[in-house]
């Protein structure tokens, strides 16, 4: 191999030969993409600035002027606690279920059943949250009474099931279950897509070694889909954190901080609290509510950044 062509190319490059002309299509597309990217950032910054501006009076205000009379932190803390608690219950219930359903669709079910099932699950994602709320309070709450009593009787030593059991079923546990059902479709849909894209050569490589179907899934499908499961869970978590109507309808609230999931005294969530109180609020109360919204914004942001970090670390590890 001769080195002459390389040298001459190098010389040509350093001599500042003009780069090939860029096609108009390329320019338009890259311009549009850049504009969209910047637009998103501006929008996000705009929301943050708005929240901060409107929350500012409440942040500056004297503690006794804030609803509750003991300051902004005391006002927001139980709400933030309730928000996170409900969302965590939802994630804990929904993620294993979603992964199982996704695997059933991609790997176990006969094709006809798999197609029908994925269609139904996609439909579930389109059901408005108010419907889930109504279902929660009218059907699931009363139906869950027996289970909640059983939990209190048999697992009452755990703080989660200490009781006394709410007779209406309007508990944090029911909210968590309803939220789980709400976020199940989105998590299932995303993980299913990725599981199905596991390269065939890896699946077959595992099977050719004498792996059973479950072993093949553990060796190839799950590692391949891991970061997708995390991303999907974060999508679901985001939705659960921000869910308003279902929670507002179901939960009987009393501003406490408790891990007791089945009693009639429950912390509210930020979003539900805003929805319920905003219409009757005025003056500084509005600013306090917006400050709680700012807190929700921050929680969501932190959750998403944490998810990013986890995914990046996973990807590095698998390189």
């Amino acid at each position, binding site marked *: 191999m001769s080195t002459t062509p390389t040298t001459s190319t190098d010389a040509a490059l350093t001599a500042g030969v003009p780069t090939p002309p860029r096609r108009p299509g390329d320019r338009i597309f890259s311009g549009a993409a850049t504009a969209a990217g910047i637009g998103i950032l501006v929008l996000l910054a705009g929301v943050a600035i708005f929240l901060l501006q409107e929350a500012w009076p409440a942040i500056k205000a004297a503690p006794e002027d804030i609803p509750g009379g003991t300051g902004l932190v005391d006002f927001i803390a139980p709400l933030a606690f309730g928000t996170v608690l409900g969302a965590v219950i939802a994630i804990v219930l929904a993620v294993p279920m979603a992964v199982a359903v996704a695997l059933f669709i991609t790997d176990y079910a006969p*094709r006809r059943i798999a197609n029908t099932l994925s269609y139904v699950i996609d439909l579930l994602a389109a059901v408005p949250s108010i419907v889930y709320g109504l279902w929660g309070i009218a059907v699931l709450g009363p139906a869950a009474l027996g289970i909640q009593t059983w939990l209190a009787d048999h697992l009452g030593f755990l703080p989660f099931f200490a009781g006394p059991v709410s007779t209406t079923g309007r508990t944090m546990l029911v909210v968590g279950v309803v939220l789980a059902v709400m976020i199940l479709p989105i998590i299932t849909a995303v993980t299913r897509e990725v599981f199905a894209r596991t*390269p065939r*050569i*890896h699946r*077959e*490589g*595992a*099977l*050719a*070694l*004498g*792996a*059973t179907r479950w*072993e093949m899934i553990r*060796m*190839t499908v799950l*590692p*391949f889909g891991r970061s997708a499961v995390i991303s999907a869970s974060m999508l679901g978590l985001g939705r659960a954190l921000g869910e308003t109507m279902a929670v507002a309808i179901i939960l009987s609230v009393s501003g406490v901080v408790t891990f007791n999931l089945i009693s009639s005294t429950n912390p509210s969530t930020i979003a539900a609290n805003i929805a319920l109180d905003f219409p009757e609020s005025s003056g500084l109360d509005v600013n306090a509510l917006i400050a709680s919204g700012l807190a929700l914004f921050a929680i969501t942001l932190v959750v998403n950044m944490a998810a990013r970090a986890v995914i990046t670390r996973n990807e590095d590890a*698998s*390189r």
Partner: protein
Amino acid sequence: MAEPTERSQEYMDSTEKLDRGATAPTKEGPDVTDSVATSVDVQTVLPHEGRESVATVAKRIEITDLNLYYGSFHAVKSVNMTIQPNKVTALIGSSGCGKSTFLRSLNRMHELVPGGRVDGAVIIDGQDIYASNVDPVAVRRQVGMVFQSPNPFPTMSIYENVVAGLLLNSRKTKKPALDEIVERSLRGANLWNEVKDRLDRPGGGLSGGQQQRLCIARATAVEPEVLLMDEPCSALDPVATLAIEDLIQQLKANYTIVIVTHNMQQASRASDVTGFFNLEQSGTPGQLVELDTTETIFSNPANKATEDYVTGRFG
């Protein structure tokens, strides 16, 4: 047991020397003292150790009236052949004539394709692998496979890739035994010297040829009786290809090997027996046209189509 070919000997010697030059004092005991001994070692040590753990007596495969289908499409028609143990059987034939389909029917991978259907018998060591009481998982454990493109598990390290098959089906193997198997399999695949210092690195970080040898080590670590290879060198450069061919020569001491290849030179160099598959015309099922010793197929085939194909006058 076959003697290593002249070229094989040279290749191994040179890699051994190169390696020794690079990493001065290694603590590998007897291996370091004699390079010729090492290349022989690989061959003599393997069957002994194999016999101690799992019986790796290479097996004869008898195929009677095998028909393969994809849904309603008849892909391969009435194959009858016997595949000899401790021999390399090459399958050649034009693209789309059903070589891969046939190969995948020997370890029950064909039925994994939606619509894949098998009719006929494949008898390995007296047992029809398609008998109703036979577990396909057990068949695949006995009949290993190396694929066209290297497919190490991307999330696993080199070490984990090699032991992947050993840890299946809740088999328990102690760590020291695993270490030994990893070293033996990687040595057997002529990869040990290149990766021994980075066994914990991902298998995907190796070069294509190294990855393919890793896949061979992975397939041989479970000590199958038969090793199927579907164009194992098609993604590799000539040097890596020769390395794999040498490896195949060594492996046939312990295994029955069936290899699909488009490379006529490879078939003539690396195989003892060659089977030629052909299509009468597209849309018709592929058939085994001729099966004979590699020498006969390439010098004096009985069938005109075979002759045209091996001499390059086809199509």
